[in-house]
């Protein structure tokens, strides 16, 4: 092999190693995506989403878990915990079932301003379904952002 060819091979290998290293580092330090800039996998309404889980939890788990869902529904409750962390409940005020939206830490102030019974579209990652005889059933979304505020 000529010296020129050897040099080219060396440079190519070094470049590949650098790119691989950079990719590995970026992948290792990768944080969670900001859902405001991420397209939803499913767009639905709270009532329909709850119904799908209540009718067939297994099938709904396979369809929705770990997927980004934009859900439209009426604000049933806004819960603030001790650390000022907000959870927004969407659904029928009279029913025990709801879509429970655990808000992204970067979008907490927006949740604080939500008004009860207002229609809103919230986007989040579905983590599953919790059904309880006493407490009712909830579809749970994590890292939620408010996509659209609507009317009462």
């Amino acid at each position, binding site marked *: 092999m000529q010296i020129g060819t050897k040099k080219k091979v060396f440079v190519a290998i070094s470049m590949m190693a650098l790119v691989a290293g950079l990719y590995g580092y970026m*992948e*290792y*330090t*990768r*944080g*969670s*995506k900001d859902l405001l800039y991420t397209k939803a996998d499913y767009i639905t309404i709270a009532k329909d989403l709850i119904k799908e889980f209540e009718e067939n939890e297994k099938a709904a*788990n396979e369809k929705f*878990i*770990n997927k980004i869902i934009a859900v439209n529904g009426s604000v049933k409750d806004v*819960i603030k*915990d*001790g650390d000022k*962390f907000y*959870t927004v409940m969407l659904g029928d005020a009279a029913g025990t079932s709801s879509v*429970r939206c*655990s808000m992204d830490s970067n979008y907490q102030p927006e949740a604080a301003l939500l008004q009860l019974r207002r229609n809103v579209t919230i986007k989040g990652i*579905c*983590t*599953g379904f*919790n059904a*309880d005889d*006493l*407490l009712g059933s*909830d579809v*749970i979304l*994590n*890292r939620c952002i408010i996509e659209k505020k609507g009317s009462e």
Partner: protein
Amino acid sequence: MKKISLTIIVFVTVCSVLEAQDKFYTKTGKIFFECTKSPLEKIEATNKSSTCVLDIKTGRLQFAVLMRGFEFQRALMQEHFNENYVESSKFPKSDFKGEISNNNEINYTKDGEYIAKVKGKLQLHGQTQDVDAIGKIIIKQGRVIANARFAILLSDYNIRIPSLVSDKLSNSVNIIIDCNLEPFKD
């Protein structure tokens, strides 16, 4: 006859209302865990959507948590946790069913801090094991705050640590529970 039926209905309603008042709950309970072995890499996550129900009359305590709800700082770590360790698709939920064994020592009508000895069964990754923990019940203005800190072993729940990461990941997992419970209104 009508009078008897009405009395029965009233009695059943009153009983269920009284029973409901014995229960405190949250759907936004926090469960934090860490299993860091190397100081260079923190392995920890928090779930802010766990469900907890406490019956203050009997001391019965129940938790339910969705495994996908644990949030890590690094997305890759979260993916590995769900796919390789707890296998969230196969075992989406974990739950604890137990009781406060010294429930009669806790005065739920008086503000203060009380030691709670908790015993029960923890189901995780398809395995169920007995768990004992010393927690704290704080009574504050009609609310019940339940705190506990305990440790479990991953090996007890059939969660294998690959040798490649055995220097980073501890088999012993420290768990911290922080639930702010409110009275259940039917």
